[in-house]
């Protein structure tokens, strides 16, 4: 059946903000869907609150609603747009849940809108555990023993039949939020109740543990004619028990014979048919008992998933794009495979390499979090690497992680000097613990286990990791042994080539040989050992591949087939992590688009499978490679580009800039020297001095004594941080010398090569972010953003408003003047971001980053001016004048950015904000005024804005003076107020009616009791000082667990109250970006 002609207008639902469990893979899939449907001539309406997505670029849809992804907003959009169909299968669980909700509200029926991709019954059957269980039984497939619980009593009954360990899976939650494994009754009681709480339907599934079983995933596609194909099989390195998003995974499946694989395939076909997913992709997870092959079905996602993105990148088969086409009626055999150009998409990709995905964790940001890996996802990103063998692919993935790893570093041995030795009892215990309990360091401990003489069998018994994987790692470690201590003279081309085929990086070899990575590289080049590039082609070379999607390996034949066009390499951002996420990928992709339009051949290098940048469709050529000095130089050697851009991908490429330039790589845009001038404390200070600009008093310290001297000179509080970090890593506000001492001991370890920077902390200052463009001659201000939260909260965690909502025109003019001065002084070619603080009418410069910033996409969405594209064109040689960019844009609307936090995934972690960034994503609220835009930003970020009820207030003394107006506003609107003793008496003095409630330490009933009893709808809680923070921790934690609206700064509370008032007064309406920007 060809394309449906009864559909004209299709609404696609995006995934909203980046959260753990739902990252930029849904921008990748959504963008593909938008492109595919527009290509087919459909009118595309899009809903997504995430401004950092490519899909929300105004030219990817006809009508782009950057509005909260909630049933209410979706209903409004449907009413306004009257689409023929809604496509809910490409925006993750969020889109699916939102679609189900509007369907159940009767909105779809009312307006005659069809759900395409997956119908409501199919979604229900896959998502509702009871229905799913019945469906699996019907087709004769096993699933683990299980039962549902909605309350304590049911939970006790279920576990009697399921037994321990028991797996707890709350229904309808993201990435298994609220789930876990309970080994005993005590753990079980705790987890099962938290799970019921986390589930929107107050339901958990308690399941027989299949911990330690082999885990597999199959990506399945089906069309309207019931043709079904498997796109990819994935085998988890970490056996069952670790969420697949947190597991290292490998494609294709490695340890199944054909007979066993076909069992999985047959089961997948039966499942997608029985569940009734009409069209598109689904992901099915299986567990296999390694002793006898018994198969159980774990779950099925009736939509495109994170694994689909991985499968697409792993095979070259664009699942989301094809899914979109199938949803509008095409059959698989009617769609052509882009890569081969002559064979249809109705086939099963076969690959001739091994793909390894390793998740990226950021536990260092949440020291209080439990770093054990369980069925609840905790990773924030992932890397993928391609190699011809598992060993090569695995080691490439390790060095892609951006955590300083170059391979199998040792946690217990000194690799340069020590040979194998027995471990001390203490080391033995640590090793055993790290092997037994899944954790993000386990891989490196596997290396050490082998180095310590443990056998593969012994390690298997402790870890349940399949011996096949362990044997491969053993072979790597044995190779390391044989390489160790070789003198440069003894290193032959054959030895080196074999090491490279095992995936050893130059850097790791350098460690073994006491050489720098550059010295190893030179030796390697002198011996003629260089990588070749092979193509990802969906067909193992059976057909000619037309898409240059490449990876490196050490073999005979190179398929790079480079052109002699003028070309630019854009270095991507690597894995998503807190501080560096989708925003930078957005900039990279825009860079590609702009340079392609300017006539350059564009070449993308990145290792993050979730991204749009690693879609083979995005750039002319894609190298799926680690972003290390070695790997980038190898590509440069082959491509010989006109220029390389390092300023779009965040810190990852930026920190390679100097070394690459030294190696003769033509870095275009702002020079690495200028970047250094902005990053290097002393050089930066000289520049500001020269320009007559101010910064907070500061100093640099390499020891505690030096730090103490600086702090004494400038006065406490001070902000301390290591140099050259992103996302405020290890950044703290320190109020006294004791904390300074504590900090210097941890921080110096955090970054031994760089000194600690100490700044005077500007208490209660307003923070302002500016994104600007400069071509060396002219400067354009892209946007000025005023933060809602005061200085001291990391800019990535703070909400902000464009345009500013409280600062004067003079201050704004002065900020412009200063921005221009610095851009010209630094000779910026491209983007620059400045962070200012405004205190008592004085403007201070906190930071200048002559590169794409986290806010670039937000500013671009809010103003309609694509900053990164313009920046790329500048770097490519077109001035602002030539691009017709001659004046700043003044917007008539207000856009508010709000951050989204992962606290709910990390029990035990406080929700207070500080100078260290903790958010995973962002949303934008856009409307005619600040209050409404802020309201939308809050709702988009998942904060419910209550319209009535009881508000709990407890603030630190310094905040009390700001509180009166907020409290009065709430009270006048009909909210009841409760407060702790100090806050209550302060408010009463000011004439605001308020009840008093006990603090937790003051006896019962106390505030946490009220929260647990559901009496409180909103919490405003600011606090200061270690003791007070500790005392009030349980308030914030309970608030979070119960999904109660909370604010931990007065500034945010004030804005929220304004927003509540505005929402009560006028309600919230929807309007597409195209109308705002027209």
């Amino acid at each position: 059946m060809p394309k449906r002609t009864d559909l004209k207008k299709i609404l696609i639902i995006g995934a909203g903000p980046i959260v753990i469990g739902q990252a930029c893979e849904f921008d990748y899939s959504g963008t593909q869907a938008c492109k595919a449907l527009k290509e087919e001539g459909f009118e595309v309406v899009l809903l997504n609150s995430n401004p950092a997505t490519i899909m929300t670029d105004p030219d990817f849809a006809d009508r782009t609603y950057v509005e909260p992804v909630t049933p209410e907003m979706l209903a409004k959009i449907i009413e306004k747009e009257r689409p023929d169909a809604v496509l809910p299968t490409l925006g993750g669980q969020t889109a699916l849940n939102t679609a189900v909700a509007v369907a159940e509200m009767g909105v779809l029926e009312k307006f005659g809108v069809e759900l395409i991709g997956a119908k409501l019954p199919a979604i229900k059957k896959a998502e509702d555990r009871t229905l799913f269980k019945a469906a699996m039984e019907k087709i004769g497939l096993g699933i683990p023993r299980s039962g549902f619980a909605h309350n304590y009593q049911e939970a006790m009954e279920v576990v009697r039949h399921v037994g321990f360990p028991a797996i707890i899976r709350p229904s309808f939650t993201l990435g298994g939020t609220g789930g876990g494994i309970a080994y005993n009754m005590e753990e079980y009681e705790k987890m099962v109740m938290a799970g019921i709480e986390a589930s929107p339907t107050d339901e958990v599934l308690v399941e027989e543990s299949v911990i330690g079983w082999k885990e597999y995933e199959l990506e399945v596609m089906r069309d309207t004619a019931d043709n079904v194909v498997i796109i990819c099989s994935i085998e988890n390195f970490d056996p069952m028990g670790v969420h697949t998003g947190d597991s290292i995974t490998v494609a294709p499946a490695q340890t199944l014979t054909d007979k066993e694989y076909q069992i999985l395939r047959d089961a997948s076909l039966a499942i997608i048919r029985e569940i009734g997913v009409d069209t598109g992709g689904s992901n099915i997870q299986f567990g296999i008992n390694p002793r006898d092959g018994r198969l159980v079905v774990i779950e099925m996602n009736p939509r495109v998933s994170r694994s689909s993105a991985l499968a697409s990148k792993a095979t070259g088969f664009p699942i989301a794009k094809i899914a979109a086409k199938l949803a509008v009626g095409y059959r698989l055999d009617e769609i052509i495979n882009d890569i081969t150009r002559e064979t249809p998409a109705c086939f099963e990709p076969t690959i001739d390499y091994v793909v390894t995905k390793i998740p990226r964790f950021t536990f260092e940001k949440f020291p209080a979090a439990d770093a054990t890996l369980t069925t609840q996802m905790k990773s924030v990103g992932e890397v993928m690497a391609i190699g011809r063998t598992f060993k090569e692919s695995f080691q490439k993935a390790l060095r892609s992680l951006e955590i300083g790893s170059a391979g199998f570093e040792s946690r217990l041995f000194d690799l340069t000097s020590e040979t194998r030795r027995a471990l001390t009892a203490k080391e033995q215990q640590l090793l055993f613990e790290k092997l037994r309990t899944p954790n993000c360091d386990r891989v490196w401990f596997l290396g050490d286990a082998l180095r310590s003489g443990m056998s593969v069998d012994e390690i298997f018994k402790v870890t349940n990791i399949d011996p096949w994987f362990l044997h491969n790692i053993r072979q790597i470690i044995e190779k390391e042994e044989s390489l160790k201590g070789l003198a440069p003279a003894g290193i032959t081309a054959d030895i080196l080539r074999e090491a490279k085929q095992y995936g050893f990086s130059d850097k790791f070899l350098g460690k073994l040989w006491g050489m720098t990575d550059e010295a190893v590289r030179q030796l390697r080049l002198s011996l003629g050992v260089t990588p070749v590039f092979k193509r990802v082609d969906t067909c193992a070379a059976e057909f000619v591949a037309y898409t240059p999607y490449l990876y490196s390996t050490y073999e005979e034949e190179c398929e790079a087939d480079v052109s002699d066009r003028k070309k630019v390499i854009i270095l991507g951002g690597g894995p998503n992590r807190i501080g560096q996420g989708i925003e930078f990928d957005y900039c990279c992709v825009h860079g590609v688009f702009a340079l392609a339009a300017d006539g350059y051949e564009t070449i993308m290098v990145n290792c993050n499978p979730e991204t749009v940048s690693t879609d083979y469709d995005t750039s002319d050529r894609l190298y799926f490679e680690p972003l290390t000095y070695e790997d980038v130089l190898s590509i440069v050697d082959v491509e010989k580009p006109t220029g390389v851009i390092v300023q779009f991908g965040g810190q990852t490429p930026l920190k390679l800039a100097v070394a690459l330039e030294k190696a003769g790589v033509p870095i275009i845009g702002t020079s690495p020297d200028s970047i250094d001038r902005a990053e290097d404390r002393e050089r930066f200070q000289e520049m500001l001095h020269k320009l007559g600009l101010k910064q907070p008093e500061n100093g640099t310290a390499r020891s505690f004594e030096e730090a103490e001297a600086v702090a004494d000179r400038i006065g406490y509080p001070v902000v301390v941080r290591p140099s050259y970090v992103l996302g405020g890593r290890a950044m703290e506000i320190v109020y006294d010398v004791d904390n300074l001492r504590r900090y210097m001991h941890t921080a110096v370890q955090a970054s031994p090569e760089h000194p600690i920077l100490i700044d005077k902390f500007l208490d209660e200052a307003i923070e302002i972010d500016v994104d600007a463009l400069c071509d060396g001659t002219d400067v354009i201000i892209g946007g000025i953003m005023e933060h809602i939260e005061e200085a001291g909260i990391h800019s990535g965690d703070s909400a902000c408003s464009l345009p500013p909502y409280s600062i004067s025109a003079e201050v704004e003019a002065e900020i412009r003047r200063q921005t221009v001065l610095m851009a010209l002084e630094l000779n910026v070619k491209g983007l620059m971001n400045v962070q200012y603080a405004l205190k008592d009418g004085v403007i201070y410069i906190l930071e200048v980053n002559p590169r794409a910033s986290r806010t670039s996409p937000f500013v671009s969405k809010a103003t309609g001016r694509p900053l990164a594209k313009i920046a790329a064109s500048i770097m490519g040689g077109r001035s602002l004048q030539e691009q017709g960019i001659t004046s700043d844009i003044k917007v008539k609307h207000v856009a508010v950015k709000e951050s989204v936090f992962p606290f709910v995934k990390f029990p035990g972690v406080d929700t207070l904000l500080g100078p260290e960034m903790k958010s995973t994503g962002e949303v934008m609220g856009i409307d005619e005024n600040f209050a409404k835009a802020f309201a939308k930003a809050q709702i988009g970020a998942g904060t419910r804005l209550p319209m009535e009820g009881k508000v709990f207030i407890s603030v630190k003394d310094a905040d009390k003076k700001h509180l009166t107006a907020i409290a009065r506003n709430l009270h006048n609107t009909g909210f009841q107020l409760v407060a702790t003793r100090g806050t209550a008496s302060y408010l009463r003095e000011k004439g605001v009616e308020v009840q008093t409630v006990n603090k937790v330490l003051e006896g019962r009933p106390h505030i946490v009791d009220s929260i647990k009893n559901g009496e409180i709808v909103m919490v405003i809680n600011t606090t200061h000082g270690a003791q007070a923070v500790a005392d009030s921790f349980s308030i914030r934690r309970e608030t979070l667990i119960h999904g109660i609206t909370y604010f931990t700064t007065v500034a945010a509370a004030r804005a929220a109250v304004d927003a509540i008032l505005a929402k009560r007064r006028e309600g919230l309406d929807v309007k597409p970006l195209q109308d705002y920007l027209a």
Partner: protein
Amino acid sequence: MKAILALADGRIFEGKSFGAAGEASGEVVFNTAMTGYQEVLTDPSYKGQMVTMTYTQIGNTGINPEDIESRGLFLSGFIVKEYQDCYSNWRATMSLDSYLKENGVVGIQGIDTRALTRHLRDKGAQNGVISTNDLDHASLVAKARAVPSMAGLDLASGVTCDKPYHWTQGVWDLEGGYPQVDPATLKYKVVAYDFGIKYNILRCLVSAGCDVTVVPANFPAEEALAMNPDGIFLSNGPGDPEPLVGVQEEIRKFVGKKPVFGICLGHQLLGLALGGKTVKLPFGNHGSNLPVKDMVSGQVEITSQNHGFAVDLDSLGTVACLGHENLNDQTVEGIRHCDLPIFSVQHHPEASPGPHDSQYLFGRFVDMMKQHRK
């Protein structure tokens, strides 16, 4: 130990030996299946060929006593990127290396198998030699050139069975392995011609309800008809169908008398017997991921294939029509006799290795026999 693969056109690949040491020659072909090397090794259709697996990690699941497709190994050489001696699978009982050594099959690993595949794709399948004794490039290329072409060779008679036998094993499942089916429950008597038959075809026939007697390639049609079967099955097998003139002659005797079902070489022989022609493909289709459309239902099935020759539909005129089409290269994937219960497919519905999408064809054969009986 060093090993070298030399192709007739002079291309050399240097690698390491695994499996048996020594020297072997044959037509070099590639197979794109990611699983099922054990079935590939035991598939008689590979007689006279050296197979390179495009998937790079081979040996992972070792060798088990169940996944065998014939009485032995018929291919002459095995070529992989990385052989993994440390296998892991609950059914495995020995390593691939030991298995190849035991069966005297020469293997080479550590070569750029993708470069080899691309070479074969661009230059066409060609003969080659793997050697661990002779490491002289020129000498090996000369040997490769001396290997006779597959075209015109009768390879089937080298792999067929000696004498007729009865088959009662059904298809494998995880719990029970291979069931022995009581012949009394099997309703349709089938004579299966063995041109290099894969066991899984026989298992599929049994599980579909057929009482199967396997007969040698040169078994006279009269004797087969004397057994009064419900249908005749023509198996897969190695090489070129054209030289098997006698066989074609015998097949012709079934036309109009019995339902006939052919697979792979059996399909090509049927095409020739019906008066058609076959052509040699540049590098053939060898893999488990090939899309085929059933012209009867319009459904697409993902199939397992292994062939270097194809039936030319035009040459069949109005005798037979297209039953299945290969969607990748639009070659004839199956034919249907216009008037009689006779059909055949180029691909392998018995899979093993490969997807089970086409197993319905055994049911179709049974239905044909049922109809014909009435």
